[in-house]
């Protein structure tokens, strides 16, 4: 197996809180001690509820936020250390991002062609003809007519706009695309179309995805491996079948249980009470302790170690 293209080691992100300075300064521990890797042509699904830190992880990966501590290596280069800026610049072309809201991800005053070509224009080195040819090629790839070039985003539906955003992301032939809730804003029928498009593009170009989503079913359908985040930490990471068929962390089990099923009879629920802890002053022990049905005394004091449960299957829980 070749070296992974993404290696994230013990990364944390702490945001200083607005308006609190000096004595009672507070900070938000959005991501704590997260580690994972992504291999070439692989999709890592990252699931979690709102505030779990999954989106922050994605943003750190493309350099929107610098990591507070830990190491992020992309394509073998460290984008978190001293040479972060230069290294990020070197790998920038190989990175792209697809946002949740296709409405906000496109400048309403920019024609679709110009939007798609923006990464080309920023990088430079494409003449008029090459630029035009690439735009048309990209439109073909995502299944939009070439006549879209001179149209504006408001003339398209949500699903079509997301295709435009994907075309823009593909412009420079990246190797890694971070999809942050990329299909969450779409209706079911549109969602299926865009998911299939992403899969086709991956097969065609050998892309890797970090696929961030709250919808567990969608994540299962696209991912090779899946990581589950809770309150800033990864609680479990496993190949998809292992995660869905034999989840070992109590949170993963509860999460899977909580999803309403269309087919088949609902299983008796082991329903989670309460809500995730505040990340301004996160608990010392296991962050899931306050809601865990199996909680023991040590869970409240001691942070759980990461245990290997099976091949590529790890979970952070005292009780495994």
């Amino acid at each position, binding site marked *: 197996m070749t070296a992974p293209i993404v290696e994230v080691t013990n990364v944390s992100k702490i945001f200083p809180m607005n308006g609190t300075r000096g004595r009672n300064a507070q900070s938000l521990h959005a991501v704590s001690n997260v580690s994972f890797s992504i291999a070439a042509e692989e999709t890592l699904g990252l699931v979690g*509820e*709102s505030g779990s830190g999954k989106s922050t992880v994605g943003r750190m990966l493309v350099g929107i936020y610098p990591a507070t501590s830990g190491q992020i290596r992309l394509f073998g280069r460290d984008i978190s250390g001293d040479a972060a800026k230069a290294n990020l610049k070197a790998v920038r072309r190989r990175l792209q991002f697809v946002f949740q809201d296709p409405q906000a991800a496109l400048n309403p005053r920019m024609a679709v062609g110009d939007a798609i070509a923006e990464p080309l224009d920023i990088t430079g080195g494409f003449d008029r003809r090459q630029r035009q040819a690439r735009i048309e090629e990209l439109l073909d790839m995502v299944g939009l007519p070439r006549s879209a070039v001179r149209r504006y985003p408001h003339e398209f*539906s949500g*699903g*079509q706009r997301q295709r435009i955003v994907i075309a823009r992301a593909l412009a420079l032939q990246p190797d890694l695309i971070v999809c942050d809730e990329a299909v969450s804003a779409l*209706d*079911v*029928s*549109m*969602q*299926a*179309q865009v*998911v*299939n498009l992403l*899969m086709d593009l991956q097969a065609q170009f050998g892309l890797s995805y970090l696929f961030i989503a*709250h*919808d*567990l*079913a*969608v994540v*299962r*359908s696209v991912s090779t491996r899946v990581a589950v985040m809770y309150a800033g930490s990864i609680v479990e990471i496993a190949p*998809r*079948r292992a995660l*869905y068929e034999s989840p070992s962390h109590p949170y993963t089990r*509860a*999460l*899977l*249980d*909580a*999803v*309403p*099923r*269309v*087919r*088949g009879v*609902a299983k008796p*629920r082991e*329903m*989670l*009470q309460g*809500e995730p802890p505040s990340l301004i002053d996160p608990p010392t022990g296991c962050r899931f302790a306050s809601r865990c049905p199996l909680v023991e005394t040590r869970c409240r004091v001691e942070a759980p170690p990461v245990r290997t449960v099976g091949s590529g299957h790890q979970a952070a829980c005292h009780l495994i």
Partner: protein
Amino acid sequence: MQPSDNILSIEKLTVQFRSGGRWITAVQDVNLDLADRECLGIVGESGSGKSVTALTVLGLHPPKSTRIASGRIRYQGRDLLTLPPRALGRIRGAEIAMIFQDPMSSLNPVLTIGDQIGETLRIHQGLGADDAQKKAVELLDMVRIPDARRRVAEYPHRLSGGMRQRVMIAMAIACRPKILIADEPTTALDVTVQAQILNLLRELRRELGMSVILISHDMGVISEFTDKIAVMYAGQVVEDAVGAGLFEQPMHPYTDGLLRAIPDIDSDTARLATIPGSIPDPGRPPEGCRFHPRCPEAVPTCRQTAPAMIRLSEQRQTRCPPRAARRSA
């Protein structure tokens, strides 16, 4: 089914919006019945007209840009659509209550939650400020908000999304309504919180003997929660069914496509089935059956004649003549 069984009947409802100087039909010819203590689910994608239908029941659609082109909404022998505003006001919140999708924006940010819950009681039961506040605490207890006595004086922005939706529910059940309309009540919430809220609604429904109309785009939520389901597409009900039959044997190609397009959490799928194309422009719905441009089973007549609902059995209706014919054959 006898009309007397139904606590609420929507009959031939057609609602239009004004857009760019034209009237555009958002809801067309919708018929729905809600029996006493029943839970009716309305499922559909955005633009299907499901929320508009629900809002029309309480007259909460924007009055200037909307018109009811036809139809009746019968509740206890009266037509809600022709009721004078004051009479409708006495029903709103007291007999028919409603909760909405976004608990963040649905609560008034400058009033305490106690004020807002108490307001329902002050309006309908003429309670004084102190009594209303006391009742508000009881209601917060009922929706399982811990530490209700302290929380009652909080402002909405201090509560989490799940808590706010509980406050909305407390507000809605304050006067023990006969009908609760829940418009995408869990869409903005996380899945574990969604489970809590659905559970709470289920318990309250039993405790208070309410009938419920649940609107959602999520087939899973609808499937687990409701007794009767109507599927809407482009402003029309395309199929309805009592019980789980709809999921086992959909009688409309749209329902079929929708169910196939949902990724399955319990198995590894290689590739999702899709419905080609996109939802039609409500200003220019297709001739004939509204689904025919996207339908894999369309036959020539589908392009020409707009189909009516066809009754298949006591439990089922569909707007797809070819499927109906195949079934009876």
